[in-house]
């Protein structure tokens, strides 16, 4: 058991780094890039925690993870204790430990952040969850409660919002059923985020644990077709809509329907969910471009471009209309991409995809941009520089300019109001919609956001559903 160190020592010690696969190595495989902490790393990092009370980090976590408490148990090598502490409030620790933007959440709120070296909370969460999986640790038993057990809850969508809501409700004893359109549960975690950032076996494991707690998950079940939300409202005591924002956007520029033009959603779904990177062992094909342009500057674009590199592209290029400072992707993702040799065509926008005589992509015509006055988002608005057109010779173009609401669920939900973009209107604190039996949360309310905000929305809805049904 390791000792508690003195505050002065805590301030002196640096953040414990996490080992990574070397860039030139990792672009040849789909294995995870960061390799995780060893027990020694984890203890050294845990010892730095100031154990603040009240803890700013907890306030920064939408899943209310009891951060100082679990970190303290790591110092004692009490993995089970640490794991149960996290699991009290977060059903997806191995996922969140990997993909949360901790710099904006818990680590952003950490007192040590002011010294520029916040506690590596994400890495510690990942460490505990991974160790617990290795040790096959059990979750706490859900409560058996006669008052809640006969109440049925339907959840639409098995992404992080739906899963988090289900886990909290089943813990309270409710009879919970999730309806998921795809053949696997996990939402973006399973179809969008690449294997090298979030191994699918880990998502599968955390989903399985939620199933073991008693949540029924029906895959291959599309709400809006097999059943309407209206039917669920009849058959269940409460309904939580968590169907995400998965519909892809396109530019509408000429040549966008040529062979070799993908939405990022399609490209990533083929590679992640359908495992096209392992073709022909897996049956789903993907066009492995030699020169691939990915249009967009967000996390999805970074995932797509790094996937293209791993699928064998010699040149994998980000085409983004503003400059690097405006890129919405996490700094860490951009750095990873740069280290892997991704090229950046900044202040550049596509105007046309050019095809060959067989209808395959052969080039992307672009125009140079310059930044003008700030727009509503506060970022400087890009403007075309007339006459600056040029072409990039590429054989695959991936459009990663955002996702929209898919109307299938909403049009089967009478009395549940949507806004002009098709997102459900829901109370930020409770997830309540305009229908008294229906709650909503995650990307289908906020538009594309983050895993942890979806988890937070699922938890708030669970709390509000419980309050409503038990009053």
């Amino acid at each position, binding site marked *: 058991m390791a000792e508690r160190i003195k505050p002065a020592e805590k301030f002196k010690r640096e953040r414990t780094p996490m080992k990574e696969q070397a860039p030139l190595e990792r672009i040849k495989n789909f294995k995870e890039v960061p390799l995780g902490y060893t027990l020694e790393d984890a203890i050294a990092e845990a010892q730095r925690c100031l154990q603040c009370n009240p803890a700013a980090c907890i306030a920064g976590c939408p899943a209310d993870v009891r951060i100082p408490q679990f970190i303290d148990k790591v110092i004692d090598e009490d993995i089970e204790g640490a794991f149960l502490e996290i699991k009290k409030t977060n059903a997806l620790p191995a996922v969140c430990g990997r993909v949360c933007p901790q710099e904006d959440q818990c680590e952003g709120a950490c007192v040590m952040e002011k010294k520029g070296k916040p506690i590596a909370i994400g890495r510690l969460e990942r460490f505990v969850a991974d160790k617990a999986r290795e040790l096959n640790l059990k979750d706490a038993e859900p409560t058996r409660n006669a008052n809640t057990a006969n109440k049925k809850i339907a959840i639409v969508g098995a992404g992080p919002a739906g899963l988090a809501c289900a886990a909290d409700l089943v813990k309270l004893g409710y009879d919970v059923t999730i309806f998921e359109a795809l053949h696997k549960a996990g939402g973006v975690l399973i179809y969008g985020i690449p294997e090298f950032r979030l191994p699918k076996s880990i998502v599968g494991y955390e989903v399985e644990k939620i199933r073991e707690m008693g949540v029924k998950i029906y895959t291959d079940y599309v709400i809006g*077709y097999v059943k309407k939300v209206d039917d669920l409202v009849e058959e269940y005591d409460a309904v939580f809509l968590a169907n995400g924002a998965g519909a892809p956007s396109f530019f509408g520029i000429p040549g966008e329907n040529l062979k070799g033009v993908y939405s990022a959603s399609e490209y990533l779904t083929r590679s992640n969910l359908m495992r096209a990177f392992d073709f022909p062992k897996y049956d789903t094909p993907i066009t492995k471009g030699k020169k691939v342009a990915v249009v967009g500057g967000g996390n999805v674009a970074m995932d797509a471009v790094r996937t293209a590199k791993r699928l064998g592209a010699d040149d994998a290029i980000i085409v983004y209309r503003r400059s690097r400072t405006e890129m919405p992707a996490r700094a860490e993702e951009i750095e990873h991409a740069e280290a892997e040799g991704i090229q950046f065509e900044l202040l550049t926008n596509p105007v046309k995809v050019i095809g060959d005589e067989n209808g395959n992509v052969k080039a992307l015509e672009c125009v140079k941009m310059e930044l003008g006055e700030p727009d509503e988002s506060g970022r400087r608005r890009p403007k075309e520089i007339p006459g600056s057109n040029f072409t990039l010779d590429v054989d695959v173009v991936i459009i990663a300019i955002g996702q929209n609401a898919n109307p299938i669920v909403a049009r089967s939900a009478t009395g549940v109001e949507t806004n002009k973009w098709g997102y459900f209107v829901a109370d930020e604190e409770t997830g309540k919609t305009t229908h008294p039996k229906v709650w909503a949360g995650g990307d289908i309310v906020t538009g594309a956001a983050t895993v942890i905000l979806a988890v937070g929305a699922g938890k708030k809805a669970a709390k509000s559903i419980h309050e409503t049904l038990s009053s």
Partner: protein
Amino acid sequence: MAKILKKEQWSESIFSMLIEANEVAKAAQPGQFIILITQESGERIPLTIADASPEEGWVQIVFQVVGKSTYELSLMNEGDNLYSFVGPLGIPSELEKFDGKVIMVGGGIGIAPIHPIAKKLKEMGNHVVSIIGAKTSDLLIMKDKMEKASTELIIATDDGSEGTKGFVNQVLENYLEKEKNVSQSWIIGPPIMMKFTVQSALKYGVKTFVSLNPIMVDGTGMCGACRVTVGGKTKFACVDGPEFDGALVDFDELMSRQRQYVEEEKEAYHMCLNERRA
């Protein structure tokens, strides 16, 4: 998981299966499709629903072996479980009692998706004229079912081995030459057949609906693999269709896009056949 209840081989390469899928069968309407996966490593295969029985809880699919995935599906037997089976997907056909006759043209494997639409239209009291065709008599499927689902049934084969010799579009033109009281038509088959048959119908001013089968992944509007151009606009066939006004469809683009993975598909099919032989 969905169980194969019944399997029939209708020709060298055409198979029919009844799949146990209670809720899909209950919800299925004419014009809709399903997506299935044979095994964990398989791809998502979209197939139009050929028939469904809500009472008995099955959905009928009809497919032709064209590559690895359909080949592997054809090797599965009664009692086997499909890894995944999801549906019904897509917008159902808009059906009503029309004043004039309705014409159903089914080419090859396209006869299967024509069937539930014809059946329903007839139930609604329409005068249903079906023209079904195939390369040769052996490949002509669902004759009995189409007979029942139609008021008049006209058969055509390219080689004249059964019914009229010739392509279905020619047979349609001959029919429209004599019959003027036609309200609408459905034309389903290979894209090239739909393209020419739509042109034939339009010559006589008959409105057409076609059912498109582009490459799909999710089938629920989340990827855009199924993009088709209809009336100059991009549509997602899986959620905006699969049925569209035939006059507006860019069939050449559809045919080109369907060929995106021919090389990969060949590679996979050959590897699979070699493995089976070894």
